[in-house]
C-alpha cells in the first residue's frame, strides 16, 4: 500500500521509542540497559492494519551481537486488531516446522511500553515486489521454481499442529459450520453493507459459492494471505513467507485458492499461480510434500471465493474513500472491482 493510507501519529518520539526498546530488550536478554544499543529506527511503508519499523539492536555483554530487526506493532490506540502475541507464536511454530520465516526474538503484550503490543523479528534481505519477480532476468530461476516451492512450503504450514496450547486463540469457523460457507456468507454480508452500487455479479457469485461449499473437513493452520506479494525472494528462491496476521484455522485449500487469484498474476494470465506457475505444479508439489490430496472442485471453489474476497477488498477501500479518507490510491481502487467480477464470470461460466 502507498503512503497515503491513514497513518496514526506516533504517540512517542523516535528517541523515546528507542530508549524504551533498549530497556525492554535489556530486560528480555538479561543485560544491563547500558549493554544494549538501539539505533537506525525508521518507519517502513506498510499496511494500515499494523506498523512496521526497521531498527538495529546491538547486544553487548560477553559476546556482542548486532541484530538487524523489524518491529511489528499495532497502531497505537487501535482496537479490534489481530493479536500480536498470537502472530509471534504462529511465526515461532512455523519456524520450528521448517517454514522459511523471519526469526522472531521478543514479544511485548504490554501496551504501556510502546503504546501498543509489538514484537521484534529478524530483518531479512530480499525482494518482495512481484513486478520485479515477473520481469527481472536475475529472477528467472526463482520464477521457474516458485510454484512448486510455494506448494511444498504450504504443506509444511498445514502440517503444523494447530492444537498446541500456544496456538490457542486462532480464529476459526464456529462448530458445525464449514469455513467455506462461513467465509462466503461473511463476504456477501460485507459486500451488501459496504457497496454503494448494485453488484449483480457478486450476488451471482455468492449463490454459486453457497451451492458448492465443500463439506467441513479437517481444519488446519491456514496462513490466510498466501500470495506472491507476501513472499520474500532472491535469485536463489524463496527467502521467507511474510505477513501472518490473518492466519486462522480453516480449510487448507483456502490458501491454495487465494494463491491462484488473478490479481497476483499482474497480467501474466497464462500462469495462474502468481504469473509464474501452473495449478498442477502447485498442487503436485503440495501433495508430494505431504499435503492432503487436493480436490479440484474444492480448489475451484476457493479460487472463486478468493476473487469474491478481492472484490470485497476493492469495495472496502473505495468505501473508505467515500467515507472521507483522502487517499488518491483508495479512490483509484473502486473501479478495479470490475476486474475481479470479470474473473468471477470466467471462473463460473468459462471464458467468453
Amino acid at each position, binding site marked *: *500500500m*502507498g503512503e497515503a493510507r491513514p497513518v496514526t501519529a506516533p504517540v512517542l518520539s523516535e528517541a523515546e521509542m528507542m530508549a524504551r526498546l533498549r530497556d525492554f530488550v535489556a530486560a528480555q536478554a538479561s543485560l544491563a540497559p547500558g549493554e544494549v544499543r538501539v539505533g537506525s529506527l525508521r518507519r517502513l511503508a506498510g499496511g494500515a492494519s499494523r506498523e512496521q519499523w526497521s531498527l538495529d539492536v546491538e547486544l553487548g555483554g560477553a559476546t556482542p551481537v548486532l541484530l538487524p530487526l523489524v518491529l511489528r506493532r499495532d497502531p497505537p490506540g487501535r482496537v479490534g486488531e489481530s493479536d500480536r502475541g498470537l502472530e509471534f507464536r504462529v511465526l515461532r511454530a512455523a519456524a520450528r516446522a521448517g517454514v522459511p520465516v523471519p526469526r522472531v526474538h521478543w514479544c511485548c503484550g504490554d501496551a504501556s511500553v510502546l503504546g501498543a503490543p509489538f514484537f521484534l523479528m529478524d530483518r531479512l534481505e530480499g525482494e518482495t515486489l512481484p513486478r520485479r519477480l515477473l520481469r527481472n532476468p536475475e529472477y528467472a530461476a526463482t520464477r521457474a521454481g516458485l510454484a512448486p516451492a510455494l506448494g511444498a512450503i504450504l504443506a509444511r504450514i498445514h502440517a503444523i499442529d494447530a492444537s498446541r496450547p500456544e496456538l490457542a486463540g486462532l480464529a476459526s469457523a464456529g462448530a458445525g459450520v464449514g469455513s467455506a460457507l462461513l467465509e462466503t456468507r461473511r463476504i456477501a454480508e460485507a459486500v451488501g453493507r459496504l457497496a454503494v452500487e448494485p453488484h*449483480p455479479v457478486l450476488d451471482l457469485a455468492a*449463490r454459486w459459492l453457497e451451492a458448492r461449499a465443500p463439506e467441513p473437513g479437517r481444519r488446519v493452520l491456514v496462513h490466510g494471505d498466501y500470495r506472491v506479494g507476501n513472499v520474500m525472494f532472491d535469485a536463489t528462491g524463496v527467502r521467507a513467507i511474510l505477513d501472518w496476521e490473518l492466519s486462522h484455522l480453516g480449510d487448507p485449500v483456502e490458501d491454495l485458492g487465494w494463491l491462484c487469484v488473478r490479481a497476483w498474476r499482474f497480467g501474466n494470465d497464462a500462469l495462474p499461480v502468481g504469473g509464474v506457475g501452473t495449478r498442477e505444479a502447485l498442487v503436485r508439489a503440495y501433495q508430494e510434500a505431504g499435503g492432503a490430496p487436493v480436490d479440484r472442485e474444492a480448489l475451484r471453489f476457493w479460487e472463486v471465493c478468493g476473487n469474491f474476497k478481492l472484490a470485497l477488498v476493492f469495495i472496502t477501500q473505495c468505501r473508505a474513500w467515500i467515507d472521507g479518507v483522502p487517499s488518491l*490510491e483508495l479512490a483509484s481502487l473502486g473501479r478495479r472491482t470490475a476486474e475481479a*467480477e470479470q474473473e468471477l464470470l470466467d471462473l463460473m461460466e468459462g471464458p467468453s
Partner: protein
Amino acid sequence: MNDRPTGVELLRAVERFLEQEVVPRLDGPRRYHARVAANLVAIVAKEIETEEAQLQSEWERLGVLLGLREERPSLRDALREAVRERTQALAARIRRGDADRGAWRDDLIAHLRRTIADKLAVSKPPRVTREESV
C-alpha cells in the same frame, strides 16, 4: 455550450502534463501517486466519451431481461439513475434464485459480460500496479 477545448481535451492535457512533466521529476510513493492521478484523469476522459452509449445499451439490455418497457430517460443523470434502479432489481432477482439455472441465466450472463467489458473499457488504460507504491 462551453468553448474549446472540450472537457475531454482538457483532461487529455492534464494527463499529458502529469505523465510527461510531473512523473519523471518525482520518485517513490509520490511518483506512483502522480501516475495514479494521470491514470484516473484518463479514466474520466474515457468515461465522458463512452458513458452515454454504454448507458443506453445497458438500459435496453436490462429492459429485455426484466421485461420492462418504460421510456428511456433522455438526460444522462436520469438515465444513469434509472440504470442503477434496474440493476438493483436485477440483483434482487439473482438473490431470489431466479438465475440459478435455465435460459434466463444464459441471457443474464451475456448481459453481465457486456456490462463488465464496458466498465473495463473505461477503467483499463495501461495502469500502474499497486506494488509500485512500496
